[in-house]
């Protein structure tokens, strides 16, 4: 039973991680907690089933399309809501982010309704719902294999982009010192747009995976996931991409084991308790840079 709980916790944690990197990357470059990120995740899931149902696109192309759309939406949110506030006090941008989140949630309710809807069952390969293999006492479904493979591949890809490409280097430069980066000839706005696109695309994938895994989509699904992923990002050290990945996994496992062994009533509470404990011991998070480095 413990192995099964641990495995399920990991599945959940990987999805949190995928959302958390979106938070942490945006924070890294513009020091903004993008509270609208949870809504982009929700839009990803809804756009995916809309492509499947309205246009008859098969699942995988629909995922790619939804990802691309969300990347665009992420850039658009930045351009419309955050860019005009780049020089404004940080609080203004934060409040704007919350406003964007509420706006998108209500737009989604107008378009797709306030009732939870199922993921298009017929579009999901039959192999996903079957047991792929059994490892000791652990039952692994095809969908879980897919979630593991996809999230891990995406995180490897992301790490490569950040560490090995020119734009990734520019992102890191911006995170270290925006003024200096601009002086070095880095096109700051383009890098910020790229960061939003990348984070939003990953968020969309997380939304689609969650939609498939739990077979339920709702306009309010982004709120909870957003808060959890934000906690994961903080737990891992906000601004640190590997930290967000680790934070997501830790939070997912803590929650699942807490619900399984302590009390299901306090599952969210236990997840946050772990986060608070980590922050108390390491104020900058598990893999965060020590506080005070940034002037």
């Amino acid at each position, binding site marked *: 039973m413990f192995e099964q709980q641990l495995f399920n916790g990991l599945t959940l944690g990987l999805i949190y991680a995928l959302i958390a990197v979106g938070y942490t990357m945006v924070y890294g470059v513009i020091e903004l907690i993008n509270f609208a990120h949870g809504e982009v995740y929700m839009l990803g899931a809804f756009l995916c089933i809309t492509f499947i149902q309205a246009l008859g696109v098969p699942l995988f192309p629909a995922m790619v399309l939804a990802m691309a759309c969300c990347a665009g939406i992420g850039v658009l949110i930045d351009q419309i809501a955050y860019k005009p506030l780049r020089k404004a006090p940080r609080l203004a941008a934060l409040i704007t982010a919350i406003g964007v989140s509420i706006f998108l949630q209500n737009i989604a309710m107008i378009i797709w309704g306030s009732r939870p809807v*199922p993921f298009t069952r017929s579009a999901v390969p039959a192999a996903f719902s079957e047991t792929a293999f059994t490892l000791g006492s652990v039952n692994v479904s095809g969908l879980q294999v897919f979630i593991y493979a996809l999230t891990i591949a995406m995180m490897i890809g992301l790490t490569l982009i950040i560490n090995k490409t020119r734009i990734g280097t520019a992102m890191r430069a911006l995170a270290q010192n925006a003024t200096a980066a601009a002086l070095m000839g880095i096109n700051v706005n383009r890098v910020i747009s790229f960061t939003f696109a990348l984070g939003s695309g990953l968020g969309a994938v997380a939304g689609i995976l969650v939609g498939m895994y739990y077979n339920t989509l709702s306009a309010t699904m982004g709120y909870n996931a957003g808060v959890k992923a934000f906690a994961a990002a903080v737990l891992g050290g906000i601004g640190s991409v590997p930290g967000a990945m680790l934070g997501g996994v830790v939070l997912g496992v803590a*929650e699942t084991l807490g619900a399984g062994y302590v009390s299901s009533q306090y599952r969210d509470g236990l997840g946050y308790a772990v986060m608070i404990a980590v922050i108390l011991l390491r104020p900058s998070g598990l893999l965060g840079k020590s506080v005070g480095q940034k002037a």
Partner: protein
Amino acid sequence: MMFKRALVMACAMAAVLAMGSLALAADVIKIAVPSPFTGSAAGYGDNVKAGVVMKVEEVNAKGGVNGKKIEAVYFDEQCDPKEAATVGTKIAGDKDLVAIVGHLCSGAHLAALPNYVRVGVAALSPTATNVTISDKGKDAKGQPWSFRNVYLDDFQGTFLADYMLKELNLKKVAVFYENNDYGIGLKDAFVKQAKANGLQVVGEEAYMKGATDFTPQLTKLKGAAPEALFIAGYYAEGALIADQAKKLGINVPKFGADGLDNADYIKLAGPAADDTYLTTPFLAETAGPDAKAFIDAYKAKFKRDVDWMSANAYDAAGMIIEAISKVGPDRAKIREYLAAINTKEKAFKGITGLTYFNDKGDCVKPAYVKMVKGGQFVPAPKQMSN
């Protein structure tokens, strides 16, 4: 100068607008419908609204009440007690609102109720089934201001515990409950009766509204090998519990109360919904001819099957409107009229059967059992007389 002229114009326009709204107020009778229309319970609010809309349109199409149109004013309280208290203050303070259909959630109803009792406006909830409401709806003189045309949780919980053992001979049950007034009340009544009946309860797991992952609890419960799952909550989470239980290989009958009773439960849970038994205040198959007409009209208008919340809301709005037509748009008189419906003979005949109140504003209504079979709600083969 320009500014002064604009100011005069604005004042004149404001005056015209104010007169307009006065004239309007005389032509319509307003009733308040506080329910969740945004947030995670918005889907239920939608159902209640649909029922009210059906009744109000029907009445207005026939010319309204004594020549005046009925207007339902919707207030969004998000099923949140804090919001409901604010909305309740607003409704109580607006004398144009003569009566209330709501609230939807027991927790919200409880939070808003003190306002209604203090100011004196009757609230008829079509859906709040929590037990504690019974004692909170009375004013200093002992008159109830809170009514409901739905049975209570203790009745549903007790009924299901009896049904499980007596009709289906199940002996070991695991319980999931939503951590709110509704879920806890239902669970407590069920567990009490189950224990009295000798039904073994192998686990009680709480969850929060909006929870999506139940695998930790289910993985734990699987070891106890329950013969049934009792879900004291609403359909969105209930569907996830059923679906995840099936994925983990727990293939046992599921039981639930009114909260699971929604066509979306089947849509969301898919094949895992099969073998779910529920109590329901409204069974289309056993309903009378009036109900049949309502069911058809509802489907034509909203393109979905009618649910019990819509049916109860339709009747609740019907009772309020009947009261208005008999005693006029007067808050105190409407309450008196409702309170006087206290015997079977004086009962209101609606599509959900007879409704009449006891001295606490509660009612006794029959419970039916329906089940999911092949992706459809069908009446359960075994009905228990009550």
